[in-house]
Protein backbone atom coordinates (compact mmCIF):
# COMPACT_ATOMS: atom_id res chain seq x y z
CA UNK A 1 0.00 0.00 0.00
CA UNK A 2 2.78 2.40 0.98
CA UNK A 3 4.63 1.45 -2.20
CA UNK A 4 1.51 2.09 -4.22
CA UNK A 5 1.26 5.63 -2.86
CA UNK A 6 5.00 6.19 -3.17
CA UNK A 7 4.80 5.25 -6.85
CA UNK A 8 1.66 7.35 -7.29
CA UNK A 9 3.34 10.37 -5.74
CA UNK A 10 6.37 10.01 -8.00
CA UNK A 11 4.17 9.51 -11.04
CA UNK A 12 2.30 12.71 -10.22
CA UNK A 13 5.67 14.39 -9.74
CA UNK A 14 6.69 13.58 -13.32
CA UNK A 15 4.51 16.38 -14.54
CA UNK A 16 4.25 18.63 -11.53
CA UNK A 17 2.58 21.52 -13.29
CA UNK A 18 -0.14 19.33 -14.75
CA UNK A 19 -0.74 17.60 -11.42
CA UNK A 20 -0.80 20.94 -9.61
CA UNK A 21 -3.36 22.46 -11.97
CA UNK A 22 -5.53 19.33 -11.83
CA UNK A 23 -5.57 19.51 -8.05
CA UNK A 24 -6.14 23.26 -8.25
CA UNK A 25 -9.21 22.70 -10.45
CA UNK A 26 -10.63 20.49 -7.73
CA UNK A 27 -9.56 23.00 -5.08
CA UNK A 28 -11.29 25.88 -6.86
CA UNK A 29 -14.41 23.77 -7.32
CA UNK A 30 -14.49 22.84 -3.65
CA UNK A 31 -13.79 26.42 -2.55
CA UNK A 32 -16.66 27.64 -4.70
CA UNK A 33 -18.98 25.00 -3.27
CA UNK A 34 -17.99 25.81 0.31
CA UNK A 35 -18.71 29.47 -0.33
CA UNK A 36 -22.03 28.69 -2.00
CA UNK A 37 -23.10 26.36 0.80
CA UNK A 38 -22.05 28.91 3.41
CA UNK A 39 -23.87 31.77 1.68
CA UNK A 40 -27.07 29.75 1.30
CA UNK A 41 -26.88 28.54 4.90
CA UNK A 42 -26.08 32.08 6.07
CA UNK A 43 -28.94 33.53 4.07
CA UNK A 44 -31.43 31.01 5.43
CA UNK A 45 -30.12 31.36 8.95
CA UNK A 46 -30.23 35.14 8.70
CA UNK A 47 -33.76 35.08 7.29
CA UNK A 48 -34.94 32.78 10.06
CA UNK A 49 -33.29 34.86 12.75
CA UNK A 50 -34.78 38.04 11.30
CA UNK A 51 -38.19 36.48 11.09
CA UNK A 52 -38.04 35.25 14.69
CA UNK A 53 -36.65 38.53 16.00
CA UNK A 54 -38.95 40.84 14.06
CA UNK A 55 -42.01 38.95 13.08
CA UNK A 56 -42.83 35.55 14.45
CA UNK A 57 -41.00 35.25 17.76
CA UNK A 58 -40.45 31.75 19.08
CA UNK A 59 -44.07 31.31 20.03
CA UNK A 60 -47.28 33.20 19.41
CA UNK A 61 -50.52 32.75 21.30
CA UNK A 62 -53.53 33.53 19.15
CA UNK A 63 -57.25 33.02 19.03
CA UNK A 64 -58.03 29.80 17.12
CA UNK A 65 -59.97 31.73 14.48
CA UNK A 66 -57.30 34.37 13.94
CA UNK A 67 -56.17 34.49 10.32
CA UNK A 68 -52.80 36.16 10.01
CA UNK A 69 -53.15 36.80 6.30
CA UNK A 70 -56.40 38.73 6.77
CA UNK A 71 -55.12 40.73 9.76
CA UNK A 72 -58.51 40.14 11.27
CA UNK A 73 -59.64 42.60 13.94
CA UNK A 74 -63.00 41.02 14.82
CA UNK A 75 -63.04 40.63 18.61
CA UNK A 76 -63.71 36.93 18.45
CA UNK A 77 -60.48 36.55 16.48
CA UNK A 78 -58.45 38.41 19.10
CA UNK A 79 -57.13 37.78 22.59
CA UNK A 80 -59.02 39.48 25.40
CA UNK A 81 -57.09 40.99 28.33
CA UNK A 82 -53.76 40.17 26.66
CA UNK A 83 -51.70 41.76 29.44
CA UNK A 84 -52.80 39.13 31.95
CA UNK A 85 -51.99 36.27 29.59
CA UNK A 86 -48.65 37.85 28.65
CA UNK A 87 -47.73 38.19 32.32
CA UNK A 88 -48.68 34.57 32.95
CA UNK A 89 -46.50 33.38 30.05
CA UNK A 90 -43.61 35.64 31.07
CA UNK A 91 -43.57 34.04 34.50
CA UNK A 92 -42.27 30.75 33.00
CA UNK A 93 -38.55 30.33 33.55
CA UNK A 94 -37.82 29.39 29.89
CA UNK A 95 -39.49 32.57 28.61
CA UNK A 96 -37.34 35.58 27.91
CA UNK A 97 -40.16 37.95 27.08
CA UNK A 98 -43.90 37.81 26.32
CA UNK A 99 -45.72 40.86 25.05
CA UNK A 100 -49.09 41.55 23.42
CA UNK A 101 -49.18 42.90 19.88
CA UNK A 102 -52.08 44.12 17.80
CA UNK A 103 -51.86 44.00 14.00
CA UNK A 104 -53.94 46.15 11.68
CA UNK A 105 -53.64 47.10 8.07
CA UNK A 106 -53.57 50.68 6.97
CA UNK A 107 -52.32 53.30 4.57
CA UNK A 108 -49.79 56.01 5.31
CA UNK A 109 -50.55 59.16 3.34
CA UNK A 110 -48.09 62.03 3.08
CA UNK A 111 -48.52 64.81 0.56
CA UNK A 112 -49.79 63.26 -2.62
CA UNK A 113 -48.33 59.83 -1.94
CA UNK A 114 -49.67 56.93 0.05
CA UNK A 115 -48.28 53.51 0.93
CA UNK A 116 -49.98 50.43 2.36
CA UNK A 117 -48.54 49.39 5.71
CA UNK A 118 -48.98 46.93 8.52
CA UNK A 119 -49.65 48.70 11.80
CA UNK A 120 -48.29 47.00 14.89
CA UNK A 121 -49.46 48.05 18.31
CA UNK A 122 -46.70 47.30 20.83
CA UNK A 123 -45.94 47.69 24.47
CA UNK A 124 -43.07 50.18 24.03
CA UNK A 125 -41.41 49.13 27.27
CA UNK A 126 -41.11 45.48 26.22
CA UNK A 127 -37.69 43.97 25.66
CA UNK A 128 -39.11 42.35 22.51
CA UNK A 129 -38.83 45.73 20.76
CA UNK A 130 -35.04 45.74 21.09
CA UNK A 131 -34.42 45.34 17.30
CA UNK A 132 -36.44 48.53 16.62
CA UNK A 133 -35.23 50.48 19.64
CA UNK A 134 -31.60 49.59 18.86
CA UNK A 135 -32.18 50.43 15.22
CA UNK A 136 -33.41 53.99 15.79
CA UNK A 137 -32.03 56.20 13.02
CA UNK A 138 -33.58 59.51 14.09
CA UNK A 139 -36.11 60.68 16.65
CA UNK A 140 -37.31 58.80 19.70
CA UNK A 141 -38.99 55.55 20.45
CA UNK A 142 -42.68 56.23 21.30
CA UNK A 143 -43.77 55.90 24.94
CA UNK A 144 -46.78 53.90 26.12
CA UNK A 145 -48.91 56.99 26.67
CA UNK A 146 -48.03 58.61 23.34
CA UNK A 147 -51.39 59.23 21.65
CA UNK A 148 -50.23 60.61 18.32
CA UNK A 149 -46.73 59.31 17.83
CA UNK A 150 -45.81 56.69 15.24
CA UNK A 151 -42.55 54.91 14.40
CA UNK A 152 -41.81 54.24 10.74
CA UNK A 153 -39.04 52.42 8.91
CA UNK A 154 -36.25 54.16 7.05
CA UNK A 155 -37.13 52.87 3.53
CA UNK A 156 -40.70 54.16 3.99
CA UNK A 157 -39.43 57.50 5.25
CA UNK A 158 -37.15 57.79 2.23
CA UNK A 159 -39.89 56.79 -0.15
CA UNK A 160 -42.28 59.43 1.22
CA UNK A 161 -39.49 61.93 1.96
CA UNK A 162 -40.42 62.05 5.63
CA UNK A 163 -38.35 62.97 8.67
CA UNK A 164 -38.91 62.72 12.41
CA UNK A 165 -41.43 65.30 13.52
CA UNK A 166 -43.25 65.33 10.17
CA UNK A 167 -46.99 64.80 10.12
CA UNK A 168 -48.77 62.06 8.19
CA UNK A 169 -52.29 60.78 7.82
CA UNK A 170 -52.94 57.17 8.72
CA UNK A 171 -55.96 55.29 7.42
CA UNK A 172 -56.73 52.21 9.51
CA UNK A 173 -59.17 49.34 9.03
CA UNK A 174 -61.17 48.96 12.21
CA UNK A 175 -62.71 45.96 13.93
CA UNK A 176 -66.18 46.81 12.67
CA UNK A 177 -65.02 46.97 9.06
CA UNK A 178 -64.85 50.75 8.75
CA UNK A 179 -61.82 52.83 7.86
CA UNK A 180 -60.72 55.47 10.32
CA UNK A 181 -58.31 58.26 9.52
CA UNK A 182 -56.13 60.15 11.99
CA UNK A 183 -53.13 62.44 11.81
CA UNK A 184 -49.92 61.19 13.41
CA UNK A 185 -46.50 62.64 14.15
CA UNK A 186 -43.45 60.67 13.15
CA UNK A 187 -41.76 60.22 16.52
CA UNK A 188 -38.85 58.31 15.11
CA UNK A 189 -37.43 56.38 12.18
CA UNK A 190 -35.99 52.89 12.66
CA UNK A 191 -33.97 50.50 10.58
CA UNK A 192 -33.49 46.79 11.18
CA UNK A 193 -31.48 46.57 7.92
CA UNK A 194 -34.21 44.31 6.61
CA UNK A 195 -35.72 46.42 3.84
CA UNK A 196 -38.65 44.07 3.17
CA UNK A 197 -39.79 44.58 6.77
CA UNK A 198 -38.80 48.18 7.39
CA UNK A 199 -40.66 49.53 4.36
CA UNK A 200 -44.01 48.07 5.37
CA UNK A 201 -44.29 48.02 9.16
CA UNK A 202 -45.13 50.98 11.38
CA UNK A 203 -45.37 50.94 15.18
CA UNK A 204 -47.49 52.74 17.72
CA UNK A 205 -48.26 52.10 21.39
CA UNK A 206 -50.72 49.23 21.94
CA UNK A 207 -53.31 51.42 23.66
CA UNK A 208 -53.37 53.82 20.71
CA UNK A 209 -53.56 50.97 18.21
CA UNK A 210 -56.45 49.42 20.14
CA UNK A 211 -58.22 52.75 20.18
CA UNK A 212 -57.86 53.54 16.51
CA UNK A 213 -58.70 49.99 15.40
CA UNK A 214 -61.55 49.80 17.86
CA UNK A 215 -60.08 46.67 19.39
CA UNK A 216 -60.40 47.81 22.94
CA UNK A 217 -58.45 45.67 25.40
CA UNK A 218 -57.63 43.12 22.73
CA UNK A 219 -54.49 42.00 20.98
CA UNK A 220 -53.88 39.86 17.88
CA UNK A 221 -51.21 37.81 19.52
CA UNK A 222 -48.92 37.33 22.48
CA UNK A 223 -45.43 37.51 21.01
CA UNK A 224 -43.08 35.24 22.96
CA UNK A 225 -39.29 34.99 22.84
CA UNK A 226 -37.63 32.07 24.62
CA UNK A 227 -34.20 31.83 26.16
CA UNK A 228 -33.61 28.77 23.98
CA UNK A 229 -35.76 28.02 20.97
CA UNK A 230 -35.45 24.28 21.52
CA UNK A 231 -37.53 24.80 24.66
CA UNK A 232 -40.66 25.60 22.58
CA UNK A 233 -42.19 22.17 23.20
CA UNK A 234 -41.62 22.34 26.95
CA UNK A 235 -43.16 25.81 27.15
CA UNK A 236 -46.23 24.76 25.16
CA UNK A 237 -46.70 21.81 27.53
CA UNK A 238 -46.42 24.11 30.55
CA UNK A 239 -48.77 26.83 29.27
CA UNK A 240 -52.44 27.03 30.19
CA UNK A 241 -53.76 29.26 27.44
CA UNK A 242 -57.40 28.36 27.72
CA UNK A 243 -59.18 28.66 24.38
CA UNK A 244 -56.16 30.07 22.61
CA UNK A 245 -53.77 28.25 20.30
CA UNK A 246 -49.99 28.39 20.33
CA UNK A 247 -47.96 28.56 17.15
CA UNK A 248 -44.26 27.64 17.18
CA UNK A 249 -41.52 29.41 15.22
CA UNK A 250 -41.27 26.35 12.97
CA UNK A 251 -44.98 26.47 12.09
CA UNK A 252 -44.86 30.21 11.51
CA UNK A 253 -41.78 30.00 9.29
CA UNK A 254 -42.84 27.05 7.23
CA UNK A 255 -42.19 28.88 3.98
CA UNK A 256 -38.63 29.43 5.07
CA UNK A 257 -38.13 25.83 6.18
CA UNK A 258 -39.55 24.59 2.86
CA UNK A 259 -37.45 27.06 0.92
CA UNK A 260 -34.38 25.80 2.75
CA UNK A 261 -35.23 22.21 1.89
CA UNK A 262 -35.82 23.13 -1.74
CA UNK A 263 -32.60 25.13 -1.82
CA UNK A 264 -30.82 22.10 -0.34
CA UNK A 265 -32.01 19.82 -3.14
CA UNK A 266 -31.20 22.43 -5.77
CA UNK A 267 -27.77 23.03 -4.30
CA UNK A 268 -27.01 19.30 -4.31
CA UNK A 269 -27.53 19.37 -8.08
CA UNK A 270 -25.22 22.38 -8.38
CA UNK A 271 -22.61 20.60 -6.25
CA UNK A 272 -22.69 17.60 -8.56
CA UNK A 273 -22.41 19.78 -11.67
CA UNK A 274 -19.41 21.69 -10.31
CA UNK A 275 -17.72 18.49 -9.13
CA UNK A 276 -18.45 16.79 -12.46
CA UNK A 277 -16.64 19.65 -14.21
CA UNK A 278 -13.61 19.27 -11.94
CA UNK A 279 -13.81 15.48 -12.39
CA UNK A 280 -13.39 15.89 -16.15
CA UNK A 281 -10.09 17.66 -15.49
CA UNK A 282 -8.94 14.74 -13.32
CA UNK A 283 -10.15 12.20 -15.91
CA UNK A 284 -8.25 14.05 -18.61
CA UNK A 285 -5.06 14.14 -16.52
CA UNK A 286 -5.24 10.44 -15.74
CA UNK A 287 -6.05 9.42 -19.32
CA UNK A 288 -3.01 11.35 -20.46
CA UNK A 289 -1.00 9.55 -17.80
CA UNK A 290 -2.27 6.16 -19.00
CA UNK A 291 -1.26 6.89 -22.59
CA UNK A 292 2.11 8.30 -21.57
CA UNK A 293 2.84 5.25 -19.43
CA UNK A 294 1.41 2.54 -21.66
CA UNK A 295 4.78 0.78 -21.96
CA UNK A 296 5.34 0.90 -18.20
CA UNK A 297 1.90 -0.61 -17.68
CA UNK A 298 3.04 -3.38 -20.05
CA UNK A 299 6.23 -3.90 -18.04
CA UNK A 300 4.34 -4.11 -14.75
CA UNK A 301 1.88 -6.48 -16.31
CA UNK A 302 4.73 -8.59 -17.71
CA UNK A 303 6.27 -9.04 -14.26
CA UNK A 304 2.92 -10.28 -13.03
CA UNK A 305 0.96 -7.28 -11.82
CA UNK A 306 -2.75 -8.06 -11.99
CA UNK A 307 -5.29 -5.69 -13.53
CA UNK A 308 -6.72 -4.88 -10.10
CA UNK A 309 -3.38 -3.64 -8.84
CA UNK A 310 -2.81 -1.57 -11.97
CA UNK A 311 -6.22 0.01 -11.34
CA UNK A 312 -5.24 0.60 -7.72
CA UNK A 313 -2.19 2.56 -8.93
CA UNK A 314 -4.41 5.01 -10.76
CA UNK A 315 -6.86 5.21 -7.86
CA UNK A 316 -3.89 6.00 -5.62
CA UNK A 317 -2.94 8.83 -7.98
CA UNK A 318 -6.45 10.22 -8.07
CA UNK A 319 -6.76 9.98 -4.29
CA UNK A 320 -3.51 11.95 -3.93
CA UNK A 321 -4.83 14.53 -6.40
CA UNK A 322 -8.03 14.60 -4.34
CA UNK A 323 -6.15 15.13 -1.08
CA UNK A 324 -4.08 17.93 -2.63
CA UNK A 325 -7.11 19.51 -4.26
CA UNK A 326 -9.21 19.25 -1.12
CA UNK A 327 -6.43 20.80 0.96
CA UNK A 328 -6.24 23.72 -1.48
CA UNK A 329 -10.04 23.94 -1.57
CA UNK A 330 -10.34 24.02 2.21
CA UNK A 331 -7.73 26.78 2.53
CA UNK A 332 -9.11 28.84 -0.34
CA UNK A 333 -12.75 28.18 0.58
CA UNK A 334 -11.96 28.84 4.24
CA UNK A 335 -10.54 32.27 3.37
CA UNK A 336 -13.51 33.16 1.17
CA UNK A 337 -16.00 31.98 3.76
CA UNK A 338 -14.14 33.79 6.55
CA UNK A 339 -14.37 37.03 4.56
CA UNK A 340 -18.03 36.48 3.75
CA UNK A 341 -18.79 35.59 7.37
CA UNK A 342 -17.07 38.71 8.67
CA UNK A 343 -18.10 41.29 6.09
CA UNK A 344 -20.96 39.66 4.19
CA UNK A 345 -22.26 40.62 0.76
CA UNK A 346 -24.39 43.72 0.29
CA UNK A 347 -27.54 42.79 -1.60
CA UNK A 348 -29.69 45.79 -0.71
CA UNK A 349 -33.45 45.50 -1.16
CA UNK A 350 -34.16 42.61 -3.50
CA UNK A 351 -37.90 43.18 -3.18
CA UNK A 352 -38.41 39.60 -2.03
CA UNK A 353 -41.67 39.04 -0.19
CA UNK A 354 -42.45 36.19 2.17
CA UNK A 355 -38.86 35.92 3.39
CA UNK A 356 -37.12 38.61 5.43
CA UNK A 357 -33.76 39.18 3.82
CA UNK A 358 -31.26 41.56 5.37
CA UNK A 359 -29.36 44.14 3.34
CA UNK A 360 -26.28 41.97 3.73
CA UNK A 361 -25.95 38.23 3.50
CA UNK A 362 -23.44 36.77 5.90
CA UNK A 363 -21.98 33.36 5.19
CA UNK A 364 -22.36 30.61 7.73
CA UNK A 365 -20.42 27.42 7.10
CA UNK A 366 -21.57 24.41 9.06
CA UNK A 367 -19.32 21.49 9.94
CA UNK A 368 -21.87 19.21 8.28
CA UNK A 369 -21.62 21.10 4.97
CA UNK A 370 -17.83 21.12 5.15
CA UNK A 371 -17.62 17.40 5.80
CA UNK A 372 -20.24 16.42 3.24
CA UNK A 373 -18.68 18.58 0.51
CA UNK A 374 -15.19 17.29 1.30
CA UNK A 375 -16.35 13.68 1.19
CA UNK A 376 -18.30 14.36 -2.01
CA UNK A 377 -15.25 15.95 -3.67
CA UNK A 378 -13.10 12.98 -2.63
CA UNK A 379 -15.56 10.37 -3.86
CA UNK A 380 -16.17 12.16 -7.18
CA UNK A 381 -12.40 12.42 -7.77
CA UNK A 382 -11.95 8.74 -7.01
CA UNK A 383 -14.80 7.89 -9.37
CA UNK A 384 -13.11 10.03 -12.00
CA UNK A 385 -10.20 7.58 -11.94
CA UNK A 386 -12.44 4.65 -12.78
CA UNK A 387 -12.37 5.01 -16.55
CA UNK A 388 -8.61 5.69 -16.89
CA UNK A 389 -7.86 2.88 -14.40
CA UNK A 390 -10.01 0.43 -16.37
CA UNK A 391 -8.32 1.56 -19.56
CA UNK A 392 -4.94 0.75 -18.02
CA UNK A 393 -6.00 -2.53 -16.45
CA UNK A 394 -7.54 -3.85 -19.65
CA UNK A 395 -4.48 -3.30 -21.79
CA UNK A 396 -3.08 -6.45 -23.30
CA UNK A 397 0.53 -6.72 -22.09
CA UNK A 398 1.89 -7.38 -25.59
CA UNK A 399 0.21 -4.27 -27.00
CA UNK A 400 1.14 -2.19 -23.97
CA UNK A 401 4.80 -3.23 -24.23
CA UNK A 402 4.80 -1.91 -27.77
CA UNK A 403 3.39 1.39 -26.61
CA UNK A 404 -0.27 0.65 -27.29
CA UNK A 405 -2.16 -0.04 -30.49
Amino acid at each position, binding site marked *: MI*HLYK*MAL*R*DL*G*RNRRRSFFSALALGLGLALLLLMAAVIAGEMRGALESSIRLQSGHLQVRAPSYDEDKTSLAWEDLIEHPDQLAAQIASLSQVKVATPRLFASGIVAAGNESVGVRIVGIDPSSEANAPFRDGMVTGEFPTADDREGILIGQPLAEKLSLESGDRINLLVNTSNGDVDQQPFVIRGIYSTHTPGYDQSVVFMPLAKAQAIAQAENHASTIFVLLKDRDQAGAVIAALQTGPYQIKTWEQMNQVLVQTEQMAGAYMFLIYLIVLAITATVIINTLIMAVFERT*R*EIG*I*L*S*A*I*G*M*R*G*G*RIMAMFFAESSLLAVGGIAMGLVLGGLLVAYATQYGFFIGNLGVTGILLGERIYAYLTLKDTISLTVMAFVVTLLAALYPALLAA*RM*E*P*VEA*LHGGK
Partner: protein
Amino acid sequence: MEVTRVENVTRTYKVGKVETQALRGVSFSIESGEFTGLVGPSGSGKTTLLQLIGCLDQPTSGRVYVNGRDVSRLNRNQRADVRRGTIGFIFQFFALIPTLTAYENVEMPLLLIGQSASERRKRVMDLLGSVDLTDRAHHRPDQLSGGEQQRVAVARALAPKPSLVLADEPTANLDTPNGKQVMETMMRLNQETGVTFVFATHDPRVIQYARRVITLRDGLVVATSMDS
Protein backbone atom coordinates in the same frame (compact mmCIF):
# COMPACT_ATOMS: atom_id res chain seq x y z
CA MET B 1 13.12 -31.42 -16.05
CA GLU B 2 11.05 -29.69 -18.70
CA VAL B 3 10.46 -25.99 -18.03
CA THR B 4 8.43 -25.18 -21.11
CA ARG B 5 7.08 -26.95 -24.13
CA VAL B 6 5.28 -25.68 -27.22
CA GLU B 7 3.21 -28.07 -29.31
CA ASN B 8 2.23 -27.24 -32.86
CA VAL B 9 1.81 -23.60 -32.00
CA THR B 10 0.49 -21.12 -34.54
CA ARG B 11 -0.12 -17.41 -34.07
CA THR B 12 -1.97 -15.33 -36.60
CA TYR B 13 -2.29 -11.54 -36.31
CA LYS B 14 -5.11 -9.69 -37.92
CA VAL B 15 -4.52 -6.11 -38.93
CA GLY B 16 -7.70 -4.84 -40.52
CA LYS B 17 -8.63 -7.55 -43.02
CA VAL B 18 -5.08 -8.70 -43.52
CA GLU B 19 -3.98 -11.84 -41.68
CA THR B 20 -0.30 -12.43 -40.96
CA GLN B 21 0.87 -15.81 -39.75
CA ALA B 22 3.78 -15.19 -37.38
CA LEU B 23 4.10 -18.82 -36.27
CA ARG B 24 3.00 -21.72 -38.44
CA GLY B 25 3.21 -24.79 -36.25
CA VAL B 26 6.17 -24.72 -33.89
CA SER B 27 7.05 -27.51 -31.46
CA PHE B 28 9.97 -27.89 -29.06
CA SER B 29 10.67 -28.13 -25.38
CA ILE B 30 13.19 -26.49 -23.09
CA GLU B 31 14.76 -28.26 -20.15
CA SER B 32 15.67 -26.73 -16.83
CA GLY B 33 19.03 -24.95 -16.78
CA GLU B 34 19.26 -24.43 -20.54
CA PHE B 35 20.84 -21.31 -22.04
CA THR B 36 19.03 -21.31 -25.35
CA GLY B 37 19.05 -18.84 -28.20
CA LEU B 38 16.16 -18.37 -30.57
CA VAL B 39 17.68 -17.08 -33.76
CA GLY B 40 16.40 -16.03 -37.10
CA PRO B 41 15.92 -12.97 -39.23
CA SER B 42 13.46 -10.19 -38.45
CA GLY B 43 9.90 -11.43 -38.86
CA SER B 44 10.80 -15.05 -38.31
CA GLY B 45 8.61 -15.27 -35.22
CA LYS B 46 11.19 -15.10 -32.38
CA THR B 47 9.46 -12.38 -30.39
CA THR B 48 6.03 -13.94 -30.92
CA LEU B 49 7.33 -17.25 -29.62
CA LEU B 50 8.86 -15.62 -26.54
CA GLN B 51 5.57 -13.81 -25.86
CA LEU B 52 3.67 -17.10 -26.03
CA ILE B 53 6.11 -18.95 -23.76
CA GLY B 54 6.05 -15.93 -21.45
CA CYS B 55 2.22 -15.98 -21.20
CA LEU B 56 2.07 -12.43 -22.54
CA ASP B 57 0.02 -13.65 -25.50
CA GLN B 58 -2.07 -16.65 -26.48
CA PRO B 59 -1.54 -18.99 -29.44
CA THR B 60 -4.10 -19.12 -32.23
CA SER B 61 -3.81 -22.89 -32.09
CA GLY B 62 -1.57 -25.44 -30.41
CA ARG B 63 -0.49 -25.70 -26.80
CA VAL B 64 2.03 -23.95 -24.60
CA TYR B 65 3.10 -25.54 -21.32
CA VAL B 66 5.02 -23.85 -18.52
CA ASN B 67 6.25 -26.08 -15.72
CA GLY B 68 3.88 -28.75 -17.00
CA ARG B 69 0.81 -26.49 -16.91
CA ASP B 70 -1.13 -25.73 -20.07
CA VAL B 71 -1.17 -21.92 -20.26
CA SER B 72 -2.66 -21.65 -23.77
CA ARG B 73 -6.16 -20.63 -22.76
CA LEU B 74 -5.81 -18.61 -19.57
CA ASN B 75 -7.45 -15.25 -19.06
CA ARG B 76 -5.51 -12.02 -18.49
CA ASN B 77 -5.28 -12.29 -14.69
CA GLN B 78 -4.50 -16.03 -14.74
CA ARG B 79 -1.63 -15.36 -17.14
CA ALA B 80 -0.38 -12.57 -14.84
CA ASP B 81 -0.45 -15.06 -11.97
CA VAL B 82 1.66 -17.55 -14.00
CA ARG B 83 4.17 -14.86 -14.95
CA ARG B 84 4.48 -13.54 -11.42
CA GLY B 85 7.40 -15.29 -9.76
CA THR B 86 7.76 -17.92 -12.49
CA ILE B 87 8.89 -16.03 -15.58
CA GLY B 88 11.36 -13.17 -15.74
CA PHE B 89 11.60 -10.83 -18.71
CA ILE B 90 14.43 -8.86 -20.24
CA PHE B 91 13.35 -6.66 -23.14
CA GLN B 92 15.17 -5.05 -26.00
CA PHE B 93 14.36 -1.58 -24.70
CA PHE B 94 15.57 -1.01 -21.17
CA ALA B 95 12.26 -1.81 -19.58
CA LEU B 96 12.63 -0.16 -16.20
CA ILE B 97 10.09 2.00 -14.41
CA PRO B 98 11.62 5.49 -14.72
CA THR B 99 10.29 6.80 -11.40
CA LEU B 100 11.80 3.93 -9.40
CA THR B 101 15.45 3.54 -8.45
CA ALA B 102 17.48 0.51 -9.55
CA TYR B 103 16.82 -0.97 -6.10
CA GLU B 104 13.08 -0.37 -6.33
CA ASN B 105 12.86 -1.75 -9.87
CA VAL B 106 14.47 -5.00 -8.73
CA GLU B 107 12.26 -5.00 -5.64
CA MET B 108 9.00 -4.66 -7.62
CA PRO B 109 8.50 -8.37 -8.51
CA LEU B 110 9.27 -9.28 -4.90
CA LEU B 111 6.55 -6.90 -3.72
CA LEU B 112 4.14 -8.60 -6.07
CA ILE B 113 4.88 -12.03 -4.59
CA GLY B 114 4.51 -10.63 -1.10
CA GLN B 115 8.02 -11.07 0.29
CA SER B 116 8.81 -9.45 3.61
CA ALA B 117 10.83 -6.22 3.72
CA SER B 118 13.92 -7.87 5.18
CA GLU B 119 13.85 -10.72 2.64
CA ARG B 120 13.43 -8.20 -0.16
CA ARG B 121 16.31 -6.04 1.04
CA LYS B 122 18.69 -8.99 1.16
CA ARG B 123 17.58 -10.40 -2.18
CA VAL B 124 17.76 -7.05 -4.00
CA MET B 125 21.22 -6.22 -2.67
CA ASP B 126 22.48 -9.70 -3.50
CA LEU B 127 21.21 -9.39 -7.04
CA LEU B 128 22.53 -5.87 -7.54
CA GLY B 129 25.85 -7.19 -6.28
CA SER B 130 25.77 -10.07 -8.74
CA VAL B 131 25.24 -7.64 -11.66
CA ASP B 132 27.92 -5.35 -10.21
CA LEU B 133 25.59 -2.44 -9.48
CA THR B 134 25.60 -2.22 -5.70
CA ASP B 135 26.86 1.35 -5.77
CA ARG B 136 24.15 2.34 -8.29
CA ALA B 137 21.28 0.94 -6.20
CA HIS B 138 19.68 4.28 -5.49
CA HIS B 139 20.05 5.77 -8.93
CA ARG B 140 17.09 6.17 -11.19
CA PRO B 141 17.20 4.71 -14.72
CA ASP B 142 17.95 8.10 -16.30
CA GLN B 143 21.10 8.23 -14.17
CA LEU B 144 22.32 4.87 -15.45
CA SER B 145 24.00 3.91 -18.73
CA GLY B 146 22.20 1.60 -21.18
CA GLY B 147 24.33 -1.34 -20.09
CA GLU B 148 23.67 -0.63 -16.41
CA GLN B 149 19.94 -0.35 -17.05
CA GLN B 150 19.92 -3.70 -18.86
CA ARG B 151 21.83 -5.30 -15.97
CA VAL B 152 19.21 -3.92 -13.58
CA ALA B 153 16.59 -5.54 -15.84
CA VAL B 154 18.52 -8.84 -15.58
CA ALA B 155 18.56 -8.55 -11.79
CA ARG B 156 14.83 -7.76 -11.78
CA ALA B 157 14.09 -10.76 -14.01
CA LEU B 158 15.90 -13.01 -11.57
CA ALA B 159 14.56 -11.43 -8.37
CA PRO B 160 11.61 -13.75 -7.63
CA LYS B 161 13.78 -16.83 -8.41
CA PRO B 162 11.87 -17.69 -11.58
CA SER B 163 12.20 -21.00 -13.34
CA LEU B 164 12.49 -19.27 -16.71
CA VAL B 165 13.98 -15.99 -17.92
CA LEU B 166 13.03 -14.78 -21.38
CA ALA B 167 15.16 -12.15 -23.06
CA ASP B 168 14.08 -10.52 -26.31
CA GLU B 169 17.08 -9.06 -28.17
CA PRO B 170 18.71 -8.08 -24.85
CA THR B 171 21.75 -6.49 -26.47
CA ALA B 172 20.13 -4.87 -29.49
CA ASN B 173 20.34 -1.38 -28.03
CA LEU B 174 23.80 -1.77 -26.51
CA ASP B 175 27.28 -1.21 -27.86
CA THR B 176 29.56 -4.23 -28.13
CA PRO B 177 31.30 -4.00 -24.71
CA ASN B 178 28.02 -3.45 -22.87
CA GLY B 179 26.29 -6.17 -24.90
CA LYS B 180 29.12 -8.53 -24.02
CA GLN B 181 28.89 -7.64 -20.35
CA VAL B 182 25.12 -8.25 -20.27
CA MET B 183 25.45 -11.62 -22.04
CA GLU B 184 28.30 -12.72 -19.77
CA THR B 185 26.27 -11.69 -16.73
CA MET B 186 23.29 -13.71 -17.99
CA MET B 187 25.49 -16.72 -18.69
CA ARG B 188 27.17 -16.51 -15.30
CA LEU B 189 23.82 -16.28 -13.50
CA ASN B 190 22.56 -19.23 -15.53
CA GLN B 191 25.51 -21.26 -14.37
CA GLU B 192 25.38 -20.04 -10.76
CA THR B 193 21.65 -20.28 -10.19
CA GLY B 194 20.60 -22.89 -12.73
CA VAL B 195 17.81 -20.65 -14.00
CA THR B 196 16.75 -21.39 -17.56
CA PHE B 197 17.43 -18.60 -20.05
CA VAL B 198 15.85 -18.34 -23.47
CA PHE B 199 16.88 -15.35 -25.52
CA ALA B 200 15.97 -14.18 -28.97
CA THR B 201 18.59 -12.59 -31.17
CA HIS B 202 19.79 -12.20 -34.70
CA ASP B 203 23.21 -10.93 -33.66
CA PRO B 204 25.95 -13.54 -34.40
CA ARG B 205 28.03 -12.17 -31.49
CA VAL B 206 25.20 -13.06 -29.14
CA ILE B 207 24.38 -16.39 -30.70
CA GLN B 208 27.81 -17.69 -29.75
CA TYR B 209 26.82 -17.57 -26.07
CA ALA B 210 23.94 -20.04 -26.58
CA ARG B 211 24.47 -23.63 -25.62
CA ARG B 212 21.50 -24.57 -27.74
CA VAL B 213 20.26 -22.70 -30.77
CA ILE B 214 16.75 -22.95 -32.20
CA THR B 215 16.58 -21.38 -35.63
CA LEU B 216 13.32 -19.96 -36.90
CA ARG B 217 12.43 -18.85 -40.36
CA ASP B 218 9.03 -17.68 -41.60
CA GLY B 219 7.31 -18.93 -38.48
CA LEU B 220 8.79 -22.41 -38.48
CA VAL B 221 11.68 -24.09 -36.64
CA VAL B 222 14.18 -24.90 -39.34
CA ALA B 223 17.07 -26.14 -37.22
CA THR B 224 18.01 -27.03 -33.66
CA SER B 225 21.63 -27.38 -32.68
CA MET B 226 23.48 -28.09 -29.46
CA ASP B 227 26.80 -26.49 -28.63
CA SER B 228 29.55 -28.97 -28.38
